[in-house]
């Protein structure tokens, strides 16, 4: 007898979206200078959620000026214990409004409510809570007896974890005494605008946090602005490279958290059911829109068939659909452009001779969807083994010896994360030492904590976010 799932939708009524949002500058919502507006849509339905302003160079200039005033007049000189209390307030308000923010995030981003509710929101609150505690302890962080803020930080974040990435950026910046101008991603501005309300509820001094919405050009104006002392960017390696070039020769500080093509290495002695859960979590968490996703499965030849059989069985159980349904495992692709990119790279996988298998699942008629997919017979030369797909597509490769696993895992310009599955501790630690990646997960994957530094080697960027190490990018 088969018991089907009944729909279990989370209520949208906890979110009260306005039809239109301005920019958040100097503590208030203001209209953008130019006439342009952009629409943000629900990727699961293509329904327009709200209109938001498009900040041009003049708006960015206003925001940077507000941030500078706030830094000079209030925030930079405020005792750490007072900054701490503001950040604790923000953490508490994020916790109090967690359900509302989770639903807004799922609406705007397309991610399953289970993830926004159980991962994005608890972590975002935790990030503020953790860094609140650092604000009055900076002299104990190992950066000298009297570390100082940099000034105004210009921060540009991606659409995959909109509010969480905002927390990763704003919490440490504010804790260290910097003020910020943050540009959320073009397709996911809503939770950043709700966060602006939270700043108001916390009575955060005007200008400490400024939010400017817009497309890439807005981000470019922010990054290039002469009044910015530090740039923090999370996004693609291509844009990160551009920013590094733009900042060359200036005195601006830069941290970058860019793309990845993580190897998830499964040894024959791994606990296979646990490994399969980890593989699924590694690549299908957040529709694979994760820079540290375990997108290359390296499985030891002796267990290849066994692992693939278990993996396909497990993938067939994934529930793809309405992001607001509490049963949903895989939600919508964030945008039409991203869906086109995933389709294009998957087609390249077919064309280059890899074998595609997709989970048998019905996809909704409207919105942007891609079934969980894996490719076998992938070689290191294939585009799907080299380029970041940023979608629910897994490339499966094999190896025979640990040395071969290391060589293949490191054969990428990226170096953000890696996974190792084995019951043998010494092998895990040996692998961890060999892998050129900033985060190595052993017998787990995609776990994050505000106390744990995160960031990449090589072309996955530089700088670390999280914990004591995450303060470094905002202090001198």
């Amino acid at each position: 007898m088969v018991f089907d799932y009944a729909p279990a939708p989370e209520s949208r009524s906890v979110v009260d979206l306005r039809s239109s949002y301005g920019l958040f500058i100097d503590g208030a919502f203001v209209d953008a200078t130019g006439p342009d507006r952009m629409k943000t849509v629900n990727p699961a339905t293509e329904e327009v959620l709200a209109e938001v302003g498009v900040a041009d160079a003049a708006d960015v200039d206003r925001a940077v000026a507000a941030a500078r005033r706030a830094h000079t007049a209030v925030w930079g000189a405020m005792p750490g214990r007072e900054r701490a209390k503001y950040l604790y307030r923000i953490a508490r308000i994020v916790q109090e409004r967690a359900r509302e923010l989770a639903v807004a995030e799922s609406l705007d981003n397309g991610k399953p409510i289970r993830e926004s509710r159980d991962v994005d929101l608890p972590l975002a609150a935790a990030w503020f809570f953790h860094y609140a505690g650092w604000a009055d302890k900076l002299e104990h962080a190992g950066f000298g007896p009297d570390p100082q803020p940099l000034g105004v930080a210009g921060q540009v974040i991606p659409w995959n974890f909109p509010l969480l990435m905002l927390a990763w950026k704003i919490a440490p910046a504010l804790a260290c005494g910097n003020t910020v101008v943050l540009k959320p991603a073009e397709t996911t501005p809503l939770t950043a605008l709700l966060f602006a309300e939270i700043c108001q509820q916390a009575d955060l001094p005007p200008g400490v946090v400024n939010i400017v919405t817009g497309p890439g050009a807005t981000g470019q104006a922010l990054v290039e602005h002469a009044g910015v002392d530090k740039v923090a960017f999370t996004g693609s390696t291509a844009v990160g490279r551009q920013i590094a070039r733009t900042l060359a020769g200036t005195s601006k500080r830069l941290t970058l958290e860019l793309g990845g093509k993580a190897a998830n290495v499964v040894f024959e002695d791994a606990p296979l059911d646990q490994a399969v859960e980890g593989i699924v979590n590694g690549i299908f968490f957040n529709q694979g829109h994760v820079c540290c996703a375990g997108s290359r499965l390296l499985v030891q030849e002796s267990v290849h068939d066994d692992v693939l059989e278990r993996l396909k069985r497990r993938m067939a159980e994934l529930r793809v659909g309405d992001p607001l349904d509490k049963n949903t495992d895989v939600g919508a692709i964030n945008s039409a452009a991203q869906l086109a990119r995933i389709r294009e790279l998957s087609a390249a996988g077919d064309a280059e001779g890899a074998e595609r298998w997709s989970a048998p699942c019905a996809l909704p008629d409207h919105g942007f969807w891609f079934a969980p997919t894996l490719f076998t017979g992938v070689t290191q030369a294939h585009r799907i083994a080299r380029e970041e797909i940023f979608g629910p597509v897994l490339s499966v490769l094999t190896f025979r010896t640990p040395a071969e696993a290391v060589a293949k895992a490191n054969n990428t310009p990226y170096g953000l994360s890696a996974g190792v599955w084995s019951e043998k501790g010494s092998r895990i630690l040996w692998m961890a030492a060999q892998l050129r990646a900033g985060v190595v997960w052993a017998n787990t994957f995609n776990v994050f904590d505000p106390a744990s530094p995160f960031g990449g080697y090589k072309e996955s960027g530089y700088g670390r976010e999280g914990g004591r190490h995450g303060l470094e990018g905002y202090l001198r």
Partner: protein
Amino acid sequence: MTADRPGDRLTVRKTFKLYIGGAFPRSESGRSFVVRDAEGRFWANAAQASRKDARDAVVAARTAQPGWAARAPYLRGQVLYRVAEVLEGRKAQFAAEVGRGEGLAAPRAEEVVDAAIDRWVWYAGWADKVGQVLGGANPVAGPYFNLSTPEPTGVVAVVAPQESSLLGLVSVVAPVVATGNTVVVIASERVPLPAVTLAEVLATSDVPGGVVNLLTGRVAEIAPWLASHLDVDALDLTGAGGADSDEPTGQLAGELEAAAAENLKRVRRPPVVPEDWTADPGMDRLRWTLEIKTVWHPVGV
């Protein structure tokens, strides 16, 4: 404080009791002692804790310790931050009691209470940072993963400062519990009542019963039983002798330290010069109740 004036409503006075295992018992000995305010007027009768009360408090602290230490540091930080939130809401009461007990004018008493709340927040924030600041990987000369991590020593007995009844108390208790220890604290003998009120705050926030246990009474009577108790792991003598006590010779503190040697308790001696409780405390009081555990694991295919 509202006086019991004719024509006014008569105030309901509070019975000041001990705080053990999350409950507020009177002393099992049935004794109480007179607490006077800074001007020498009768204020209340407080419970005078006995040897048995001290031993009960140690049992409660020991029982609570593994669970408290097992909570994620982040959660411990949140629980302790919640204490600060509740403290803030009862600021007026604390300011009145601290003012009356320590003889401080209202503005000064309020400053002291503000500092105590901020101190609590400061230590709450340490809960999930101590490990990263005091621990770390050790670069040993061999194929080993070698990692040192601080862990709580266990049950800590504290003789609270005698003069600073709230700020001093918070400054000695919060760092001990922030890292996962549990505590048995003897309140200031002369000004014990703000400590009892603090216990009420702890009881109504999210701190599990037994994490902080409070005794009021005579230091010279109770402290020796804690100093010689074999299920106590560390002993803070801040208020037991020397500069922050009523017994400046330090003879009692010396005897307590000697008794503590039996099971090699970690002992924090009384300060030589009076502590400035408003100063930045640094990490000192976090460190002394931590053990460092080092794990070795081979590295190799």
